[in-house]
């Protein structure tokens, strides 16, 4: 499955929205290709586009939850679905989803998708130093909660 889809899913935790983001990213790629100038790797550019689209979605979601539907902010999955899922994996996924968005993006690009630090930093429009800060904080937070919850 395309990396762009995986990145989008890991940031948004929503399959349909990740598919939309993947489609939109490709659409922008097709439009941009005739005028492409290799200032950066094309793949890095594509990751950056996908991340920006994900951020837009997250901002819109947040606005809806805060301004219109505060009573619908319960993120608990449907009880029947929850029973069918592997609870341990879900708890891990839940802890990742609870990370601040930028930490989750950094973790997605580097830990899950294996981007190099420079490429991930370019995709996120930050410095390598800032990227390492985000990654370090993300892993420290996860280690702390998972050590209590799952890890031996």
């Amino acid at each position, binding site marked *: *499955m*395309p*990396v*762009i*889809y*995986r990145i989008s*899913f*890991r940031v948004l935790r929503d*399959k349909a929205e*990740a*598919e939309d983001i*993947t*489609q939109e*990213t*490709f*659409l922008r790629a*097709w439009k941009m*290709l*005739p005028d*492409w100038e*290799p200032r950066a790797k*094309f*793949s890095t550019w*594509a*990751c950056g586009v996908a991340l920006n689209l994900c951020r837009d979605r997250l901002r819109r979601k947040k606005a809806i939850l805060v301004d219109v539907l505060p009573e619908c902010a319960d993120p608990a999955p449907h009880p029947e679905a929850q029973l069918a899922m592997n609870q*341990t*994996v879900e708890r*891990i*996924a839940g802890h*990742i989803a609870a990370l601040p968005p930028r930490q989750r993006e950094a*973790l997605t690009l*580097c*830990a*899950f*998708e*294996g*981007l*190099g*630090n*420079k490429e991930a930093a370019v995709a996120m429009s930050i410095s*390598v130093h800032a990227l*390492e800060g985000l*990654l*370090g904080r993300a*892993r*420290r937070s*996860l*280690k702390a909660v*998972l050590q209590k919850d*799952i*890890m*031996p």
Partner: protein
Amino acid sequence: MTDLSLTHDRVLDLIAIYGADPEVWPEAERAAARRHLSVSPEVFADALAEAHALDACLARVPVPEPDPSLANRIMATAPKMRRRQAAPVYLFRWSGRRSDIGAALAALAVGLVAGYATASEAVDPLIPVETGWSVPWETSDELPFWLKEGDME
């Protein structure tokens, strides 16, 4: 003998930031960091064990397969393919010239994008098409990872 350009603290940072697998550490620091690990394994054992446990947890989180129609939806937005009367130009070019390699690359790219669609829905990438543009990668090694189905290299 360890590499003095890297301190033990920096190696511990690399483990804390990037995880236990040296293959994902920054390339510029990887070799020196490996030397530290081999010379003073006891210094890094606990950090590596903790990072490895976290890596193992992260590796357990799956990503659901996208809808099979996604590939077709993506390809439907691609520049339209048209047959030319003469001198066809392939969708993907090799250094600006028509070639079998370019056609093969087109097959690879389109096949990978459409890889999770059903075979009957696949686009035939070897049909000569007119596009008016070429893509910014020229060899199969440069094929963008975001077009690949598997893990990135």
